[in-house]
């Protein structure tokens, strides 16, 4: 096991990490291994799960009735973050330079970093929405479909599409506000 970070933890926390490691390491490696091709990141992802669990409550978390379910719920959010980082990184790095759009911008490293964080955050906000609401918002806003076309594509009513759109816009407004 990768123990390089363990020295930062108290004796009690280290004991918790050890127990989690013994119990879940193998199945978490399998879980991540099936879902990503980045084999070099597997160990880090497993560590990330344990560290998140530790941060949330440490030893008391281990007394949970449904510990396994909780561990894999955490693993699922680690996986989502992993995809998000990887994909954002790729999209940002592969964006061709467009003189018309980018020519006048400030390209200091700091500026690029802020943009990347902003892109990540903006995209991630959509992941917080229920699946159907997100799908509707993406079709309407990102893919540019009309309400009636979204309704036809998903086999739901126009009223229902409108309701989901209001929820999505409300969510994005609220999350944007939280960053001010």
């Amino acid at each position, binding site marked *: 096991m990768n123990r390089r970070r363990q020295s930062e933890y108290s004796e009690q926390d280290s004991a918790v990490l050890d127990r989690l490691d013994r119990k879940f390491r193998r199945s978490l490696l399998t879980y991540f291994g099936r879902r990503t091709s980045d084999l070099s990141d597997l160990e880090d992802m497993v560590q990330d799960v344990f560290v998140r669990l530790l941060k949330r409550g440490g030893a008391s978390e281990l007394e949970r009735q449904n510990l396994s379910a909780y561990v*894999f719920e955490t693993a699922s959010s680690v996986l989502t973050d992993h*995809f998000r980082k990887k*994909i954002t990184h790729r*999209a940002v790095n592969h964006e061709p330079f467009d003189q018309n759009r980018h020519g006048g911008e400030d390209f200091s490293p700091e500026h690029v970093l802020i943009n990347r964080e902003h892109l990540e955050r903006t995209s991630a906000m959509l992941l917080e929405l229920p699946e159907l609401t997100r799908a509707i918002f993406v079709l309407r806003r990102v893919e540019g479909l009309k309400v009636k076309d979204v309704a036809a594509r998903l086999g739901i009513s126009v009223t229902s599409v409108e309701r989901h759109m209001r929820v999505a816009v409300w969510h*994005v*407004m609220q999350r*944007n*506000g939280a960053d*001010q």
Partner: protein
Amino acid sequence: MMEPTDSTWREPARLEAAADWFCHRLDGPLGAGDQAAFDAWKAESPANVYVYARAEAAWRTYDDPRIAVIVRAMTAAQAEASHFTAPTPGNDDDL
């Protein structure tokens, strides 16, 4: 324009009303009655005008074409991940 305080513009009912109006207007020009109601709502409070501008700003956030690339890839990645069933929870007794 006076900038409403944080708590003013965060009132849930106000945010909701702004989102409702914004989405309503997305679907096409308002009829005369709705337009009057929208104008009246904005005239009610500077906070309404402010929050409505926030709805427009939130919408514009998704103008960046890179968002489409990221969102499509995220959706594909999630769909791929969901093909695998969740592991069977193990027995926690030996912890």
